[in-house]
């Protein structure tokens, strides 16, 4: 790039403003929470199916400790962690969804997802069953 795109020196990511981070209630969700699957699968278009991804600028989410996931989403949302688009996205999910997503990703193996054994629903894990709970 030859030209500077910068007009102001203001730090861009502060613009989101502080969104009050409500306490997250870990007790209210489990890895089988259908809200976790529903919200988490929307991440996969960049972060890989069930959060598994290799050789990418995107951070793998599979197997990420839940506290790390929650802290990341909270700090994207309040702008304390700089991001391009994770700020707006993190702000659009509820605390319960974020906790449920955290549980979901923590439970995912750090390897590629596949329906190995079509004879058994168990292979994909109860955690994936939207009818559970």
């Amino acid at each position, binding site marked *: 790039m030859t030209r500077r795109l910068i007009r102001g020196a203001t730090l861009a990511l502060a613009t989101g403003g502080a969104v009050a981070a409500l306490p997250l209630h870990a007790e209210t969700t489990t890895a089988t929470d259908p809200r976790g699957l*529903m919200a988490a699968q929307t991440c996969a*278009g960049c972060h890989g199916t069930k959060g598994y991804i290799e050789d990418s600028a995107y951070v793998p989410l599979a197997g990420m400790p839940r506290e790390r996931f929650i802290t990341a989403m909270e700090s994207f949302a309040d702008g304390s962690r700089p991001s391009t688009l994770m700020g707006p996205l993190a702000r659009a999910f509820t605390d319960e969804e974020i906790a449920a997503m955290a549980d979901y990703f923590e439970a995912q193996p750090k390897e590629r997802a596949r329906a190995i054994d079509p004879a058994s629903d168990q*292979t994909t894990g109860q955690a994936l069953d939207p009818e559970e709970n």
Partner: protein
Amino acid sequence: MNRRDFLKILGAGTAATSSLAAPLARAERAPRVVIVGGGVGGATTAKYLKLYAPHVNVTIIEPKREYQRPYGSSEVITGQIELEDIVISYDDLKTRHGIEFVHDTVEAIDFEAKQVRTAGGQRLGYDRLVVSPGVSFDFEAIDGLTAELAETRLPHAWDAGDQLLVLKEQLESLPENPTVVIGPPPNPYRCPPGPYERAGLIAQWLLDRGDTQARVVILDPKNGFTTDYTMLHAWNDLYDFNIPEPARSKYSDEEWAQLTVHDNPGPIEWVMGDMGGRILSVDAETMTVEAEAGTFQADLINIIPPLKAGRIAIDQDLADDSGWCPVDQRTFESTRHADVHVIGDACIAGAMPKSGYAANSQAKVLAIQLKALLAGNDPVEPVFQNTCYALAGNTEVGMFVADVFRMDGDTIARVDEQRYLPFDATEAEYRLAALYQHNWMKAFTEDCFS
């Protein structure tokens, strides 16, 4: 008669004949889901349905042996990538996920018998049918445009394929300092930032070639587009682009004051709808475009005609007068025909755009809903996302739109507030967005097809 009554009648009609057979049949055979179209929507539905409900029998009917992704395909024209880079194999879906493929074209759907018929004469029965046929083009809407000319003189190159190569060759054989006309379609259409990204890529390509006096004229029926706020700003900076006065309302007074008015504007001109940008006719012989604002003589013409749902959806009565398919936006079940779900570009999905990310997000929700419905359970409350990256032209300057969607009554609505890079984004942020754009092509393709 509303849909519920219709279903009741339908149910009553079939109950007598199938009441004995149904429980037996259910116990004996796996549920069958047939998918029309192995593009983004169809492939993602198949893969996720197999992940979430491996017992379901999933068949994709798709004429092409290999998919060519439309997303990110403009870079084929300007040579950042080759045509082979957008070719995607179906092998992973077949072998890793156990999805059946029939390489054929669906010609008819028998909604009563719950059967599809292919051009090759095969009949396939289904319990639930998924239709994700992408788009078709309304050539008749613009005088002088035809499907034949799109293959030769006037390629739209909006559905991957060889038209990309035709356009690439036309670009490469342009005289010095040419005039290029780009005609974005009216709303709604697939990939809202796409025509403008293409204009930027072509402008950059011409500048790189040393054409300092080239013109890239965008003749637009619209007054705005997704990412316009970022794209116009980036062009103002990169290409000495003057943002037309009618676009002023997109910016605050303070922001507008920071934009530059260039005495010697660069290649890109945006003739907005309010400025007469709507194209009325085109003449491939004389290479002229007639717009409301006047006549434009061009060396290269890239008009993207108005779009409609894929042909099969229109022919089989799944589309309404708008040319798109109305669905129950929670389950994507057609409001015109029961047990048939339409997703992706072809469907009407509230505030969701016609994009690959949207088709992929809808497909995953559909996989969850199909699993529930096939088991006789209620559908689940959906959440959707759309993230579309775009380049300014310079491939190191990127931008995006990022949205989350939820149901608002019966309609899918956007729930986020900020969705673009902010006005005062740093150079590093534009660069990062471009880096993510390039990584997204692989990551996204894997989520859909591997």
